[in-house]
């Protein structure tokens, strides 16, 4: 055996080792080093391990949760900066929480509550207004009474129907900042091809059916005259409201006079205002509900409307933009979406939802709710109040990707780039049809929505007899939904 040892050098202590330094590293030293490395990694990752890097945790800043992406949070930076300038002593942090829809967003907020890291303020839509009012949110009554003079400007500019949607058992829980009614969007290119003009303001359900038939005749292939989706907003509910009914019996709780008498003494509908909507019992087997579902089933059967599970969201904007859809229910938020999809202001228009027994519209709205667990409720109220100011609302809603609740902001200038031509329809909906109401969303909203969605699809996919059966199932599911968690 030959040796490759250089004369004068000591022999390596291990046959495989050629490095004297490493060769002296014992197993104990190795373990020590590994331990040190682990300790170092632990120290480095400590904020992640302890969750202190979660926005809001361990911070004294007021944490405001919104539905959206980090880009949506960044888009509110102007608003945050303006608030900080007005209230330098109140640090604010906007936390964007992603969710497929409001239901998903609320689930995540509740998970944060369970984890002991609830936000201080949450942007809540009508879908969750009563869930928050019932379990999580702080009533604003005392703050509104205290700052009544400051608030007059806001209430003078906002329709009372929008406020009523956020009253619960006589107390007001949110100041709505944006809203949308389920109006009817019209694809003017397809209307022109069918030789149709924009329908009249008081067009009826029969006019609507005739319009769809004309649209179908003009474009028999690759085209859907009426596209609707299976969800609370813009789904079956606008038709139920137009037919003067709903899948839940709607009443109003007592109370609220303190608010209406102070801020809306001249409201023409004052006598109908109360302490907030109540949906306490199912109403799915009502004759008008069955009639409404049967009408929608006929639209599907005749090829005038899609089955409601077919899709929505961005796909719907794309299809509408490519003239593959003639009409669809949507609100002011669609103006920017269609503009972004490449439609010019004359390629689409909007009209009120058709009249059936009534022309009552469905709407949805949203605003900030102060959590009962908020660290500093007074500071949170300052945020809520600031966001309701005209200055803040202009910063928060610079383009028509939703409809501002302040009437003065819904003007020609706001829609000058996007259209539609008849943008006045958006706010006129509330003036013309003062009984228009919010999405029916009791505190058990998630269970109610699940029950509705699954039975809508069954009801409109079969025969007329199937509608009655599906409504029986919906009635049963709603009873279960309202009974549980009540």
């Amino acid at each position: 055996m030959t040796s490759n040892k250089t004369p004068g050098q000591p022999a390596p202590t291990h046959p495989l080792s050629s490095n004297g330094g490493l060769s002296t590293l014992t197993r104990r030293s190795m373990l020590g080093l590994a331990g040190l490395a682990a300790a170092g990694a632990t120290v480095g990752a400590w904020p992640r391990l302890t969750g202190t890097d979660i926005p809001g945790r361990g911070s004294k800043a007021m944490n405001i949760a919104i539905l959206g992406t980090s880009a949506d949070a960044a888009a509110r930076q102007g608003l945050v900066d303006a608030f900080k300038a007005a209230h330098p002593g109140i640090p604010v942090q906007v936390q964007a929480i992603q969710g497929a829809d409001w239901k998903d967003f609320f689930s995540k907020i509740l998970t944060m509550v369970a984890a002991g890291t609830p936000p201080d303020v949450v942007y809540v839509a009508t879908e969750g207004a009563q869930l928050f009012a019932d379990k999580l949110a702080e009533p604003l009554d005392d703050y509104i009474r205290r700052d009544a003079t400051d608030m007059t400007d806001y209430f003078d500019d906002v329709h009372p129907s929008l406020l009523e949607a956020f009253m619960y058992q006589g107390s007001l829980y949110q100041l709505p900042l944006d809203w949308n009614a389920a109006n009817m969007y019209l694809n003017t290119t397809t209307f022109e091809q069918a030789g149709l003009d924009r329908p009249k303001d008081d067009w009826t359900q029969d006019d609507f059916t005739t319009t769809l038939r004309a649209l179908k005749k003009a474009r028999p292939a690759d085209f859907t005259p009426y596209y609707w989706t299976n969800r609370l907003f813009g789904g079956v509910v606008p038709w139920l409201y137009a037919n003067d009914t709903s899948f839940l019996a709607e009443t109003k709780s007592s109370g609220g006079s303190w608010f209406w008498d102070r801020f809306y003494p001249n409201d023409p509908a004052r006598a109908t205002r109360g302490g907030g909507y109540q949906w306490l019992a199912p109403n799915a087997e009502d004759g008008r509900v069955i009639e409404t579902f049967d009408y929608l089933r006929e639209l599907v059967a005749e090829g005038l409307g899609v089955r409601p599970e077919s899709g929505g969201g961005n796909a719907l904007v794309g299809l509408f933009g490519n003239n593959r859809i003639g009409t669809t229910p949507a609100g002011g938020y669609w103006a920017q979406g269609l503009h972004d999809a490449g439609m010019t202001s004359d390629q689409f228009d909007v009209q009120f939802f058709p009249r059936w027994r009534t022309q009552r519209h469905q709407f949805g709205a949203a605003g900030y709710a102060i959590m009962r667990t908020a660290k500093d409720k007074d500071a949170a109220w300052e945020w809520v109040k600031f966001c309701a100011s005209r200055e803040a609302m202009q910063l928060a809603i610079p383009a028509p990707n939703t409809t501002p609740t302040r009437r003065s902001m819904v003007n020609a200038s706001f829609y000058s780039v996007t259209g539609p031509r008849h943008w006045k329809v958006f706010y006129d909906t509330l003036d013309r049809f003062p009984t228009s109401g919010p999405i029916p969303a009791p505190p058990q909203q998630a269970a109610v929505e699940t029950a509705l969605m699954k039975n809508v699809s069954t009801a409109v996919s079969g025969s007329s007899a199937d509608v009655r059966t599906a409504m029986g199932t919906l009635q049963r599911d709603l009873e279960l939904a309202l009974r549980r968690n009540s």
Partner: protein
Amino acid sequence: MTATAVTRRQTAAPPAVRRSFIERRLAMIFLAPTVLGMALFTFLPIIGSLVLAFFRWDIISAPQFVGLDNFASLAGDPTVRVSFLNTIVFVIVAVALQLGIALSLASMLQGRMPSWLRVFLRSTFFFPLVLSAASVSIFMRYMFNEQFGVVNWLLSLIGIPAVPWLTSPVGSAAVVVLVYVWQNFGFSFLLFLGALTNIPKELHEAANLDGATGWKQFRHVTLPLISPTVLVASVMAIISALQVFDQPYVLTNGGPGDSTRTAVMVIFESAFQQLEFGRASAIGLVLTLLILAVTALQFRLSRRFVFYQ
């Protein structure tokens, strides 16, 4: 030598015992993070969920003990009943297809073909498994859209009218099974490929000499030899299929009606949408018992059908 030194030498453990002690300690140190992780994130939640099944809890209010009420309410809940029935039917159809397709394709790849083609096919069959189930389901939802989907467009080219893939009970169930099987057969395929490759060629040659070819050879030589793999693949496929969630949730959201609603979907909806964590835990417990029962049955039956060399 002093008396102390003698005593120390007498009491010191022999080197082998000492080494074994150190190794045991080292093993414990290295295993500790995993054991701790499992205790925190697996065993504790299991115990928590067992306990929760006897409570009513909506996250916000304090939990309220309700005894067996959550379990009693499940029996009378038609949605739960239908979802379990759907899950069982789904498991039967999807697992049969998954294993059948995987075994057929693995056998096909054992035949003569250029090595590049074998590599290409192997990768192609496995590829769907590495994709996100949610992404695939979103993509497939567009593909199978009744009005604007590519599938119906292709069918229209040969004169077939639009099929309501995702809006009819049969169509939606078929699409959910199809997408699930397409995405999951790759794992079973790899298991079968490994098992088939390990069968000694001599056995097939001997079978050929005895006149057993084709189906007979597969039935009497190949299948018995890969039966342990078939058992493992079927156990894993059934457990996975019993927990199906992503595909029906994204493709159909359980609809139309309840036609594609599965047990795990109901657990998710109960807990995270309807805030009935006790009820969700009770359903989860029933599903766990079902999985255990099915797996135990499989192992019991395997004594008759599985051939160990």
